[in-house]
């Protein structure tokens, strides 16, 4: 594999972000412009004089990656340079679903020719595991800590797939770093569409989730096998493909190996949250027909 994203970057051992990034860049054969908002990926890869990037890369601020990408797209069109490559955003879940959601909506709405990839590690992990709109219920983050009264995050994970679909953009999908060939296929498929594309990739965080550094892929797989993270693919608003699950696992199997959920097994409200998570998984399985 040619090094579009080189070794020597500052990711933690077992970090899933480079897996996602390398597979996306590989699928595009490095023919792309990368926009990256502030966050884990930016910090591990873009220190002055030590850039890991072998493709043109820009980081502006936290909440504007979609707009910066729109600007690159506009400039390439105006300057007759569209053939140079695709415009790709790699953004974290906080940058995507919280602080940058306005710019993202604008980019989707204008349907810029941009592939927007949300690297979903389910909290602000760069700053040390604070809850985001994509943090799942019950997760113990530093801003939704499990305490005597509260059992971690209250409320559901924001449905950014529905958000993307509501903008009628041509391609929307989810993926997990547990399935890199699926990521590569989806990226190749996505860029066949002219307009805005959204792929949300589940990227476990070793430190924030409290998992062993050799369990990243195992956890990323369990999220899918429990149906908590359904792998879906939409083209022009139609659900065209889902990743089927052979024998769906109970959510406890996924929860118990992560420090962020461990309190649920002894907290007075833990049982309630686990039941809620199981209900969400069951709904996903039913809604997308995940069970084989």
């Amino acid at each position, binding site marked *: 594999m040619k090094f579009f994203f080189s070794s020597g970057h500052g990711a933690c051992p077992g970090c899933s972000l480079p897996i996602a990034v390398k597979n996306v860049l590989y699928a595009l054969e490095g023919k792309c412009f990368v*926009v990256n908002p502030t966050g884990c990926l930016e910090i591990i890869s873009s220190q002055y004089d030590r850039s890991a990037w072998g493709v043109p890369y820009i980081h502006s601020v936290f909440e504007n990656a979609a707009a910066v990408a729109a*600007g690159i797209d506009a*400039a390439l069109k105006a300057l*007759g340079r569209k053939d140079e490559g695709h415009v790709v955003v790699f953004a974290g879940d906080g940058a995507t679903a919280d602080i940058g959601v306005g710019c993202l909506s604008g980019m989707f709405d204008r349907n810029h020719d941009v592939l927007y990839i949300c690297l979903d590690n389910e909290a602000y992990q760069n700053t040390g595991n604070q809850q985001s709109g994509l943090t799942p219920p019950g997760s113990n983050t530093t801003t939704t800590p499990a305490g005597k009264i509260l059992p971690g995050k209250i409320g559901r994970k924001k449905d950014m797939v529905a958000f993307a679909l509501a903008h009628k953009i041509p391609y929307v999908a989810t993926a997990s770093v547990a399935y890199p060939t699926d990521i590569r296929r989806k990226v190749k498929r996505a860029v066949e569409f002219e307009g805005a594309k959204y792929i949300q990739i589940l990227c476990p965080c070793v430190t924030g989730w409290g998992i062993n550094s050799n369990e990243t892929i195992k956890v990323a797989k369990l999220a899918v096998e429990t149906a908590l993270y359904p792998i879906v693919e939409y083209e022009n608003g139609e659900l065209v493909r889902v990743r089927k699950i052979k024998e769906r696992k109970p959510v406890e199997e996924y929860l118990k190996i992560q420090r962020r959920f461990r309190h649920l097994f002894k907290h007075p409200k833990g049982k309630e949250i686990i039941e809620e998570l199981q209900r969400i998984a069951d709904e996903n399985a039913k809604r997308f027909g995940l069970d084989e």
Partner: protein
Amino acid sequence: MVRKVVRGFYAVAYAVKLCRPSVICAYPITPQTEIVENLAAMYANGELENCQYITAESEFGAASILVGASATGARTFTATCSQGLILMSEVLWNAAGMRLPIVMVIANRSLSAPLSIWNDHQDSMAMRDACIIQVYVENNQEAHDMIPQAYKIAENKEVMLPFMVCMDGYKLTHAYEPVDLLEQGMVDSFLPPYNPPIKLTTKDPLTFGCYAPPHCYMEFRVVMQRAMMRAKKVMEEVFKEWAELTGRNWGGLIATDYMDDAETAVVAMGSVVGLVREVVEEMRKDGKKVGLVKIRSFRPFPTEELRKVMKDVENIVVFERAVSFGHEGPVAIDLKSALFGHCNAKVYSFAVGLGGRDIPRDLIRKCINNAIEGKVDEGFHFEGVKEFEEVII
């Protein structure tokens, strides 16, 4: 050139078109909206060649889109003011640090609260330290002329900084004035196509917007300051070239009238300069040794120029269109710091016309006379304020 009676927003929109921008972003805000509306009409009629006109979802988005476009090598334009400028501010600081020569028109408007759509300079003053060139224009011809010059200065390889052309909202944007409209050939001969020294391209992949740990951050700030200081010389050269090309000489970083033997210097920026000049001329007729200093470039600040013209004056009267709350007017603050140790004049600064309050001729005359006659204390004053009672006290 054709002389036409046009409104300010058209004068700048037309000049922007002649500069052949590649990407224009629009987001409406009073009283700027008509600038981007005029550009939209030109775009809809196919008059903007090889240009993308984008309706952003906010001013924040508009500035961000231009960051991406400018970094990719496109000549860019947007216009905003007031809350819109403040909303853009995070991105504009970032654009300056990345050395992106985005050109913007600021239709100067006051800031909320209380909400006011009318003119003062509080909005652009809030961007003072962002490493963005700020030029204030006096009338619509100067606004029209400043657009090609702004691109030429901002895109100069020794500068590479964002540029704000500040024109008073309503007072200029919506005023009808005769303007000699530039011709395409003239602008083409003056302004070459934008060809940045570095850009985002797959042919030579570069990293823009890196993060800099303490061992290298400071050097980036040093080069920003150097670029600002180099801009002074570049601006003088471009202003001179413009005067030779068009026959319209707007001056340098400052422009002066009657300053050769002046005992009292009156300092102003923007559209109020026209009125102040008339008052100065009247006072000259009355035998008073008064002169006018129009500050054109607020950033970079014309330190050396002011030291030179203020060397022998006894009084300095500054008309402020903004306040640095807790201190005084921003122009006087900078003026005093520039003159410290170089001039012994008494400095009087008067905030006038905040939030679009009318600035009568008599008020200007009264302020200058009071300063000359020692009827007011040195320092900062609000003028043209009604009697009122404070509620929260």
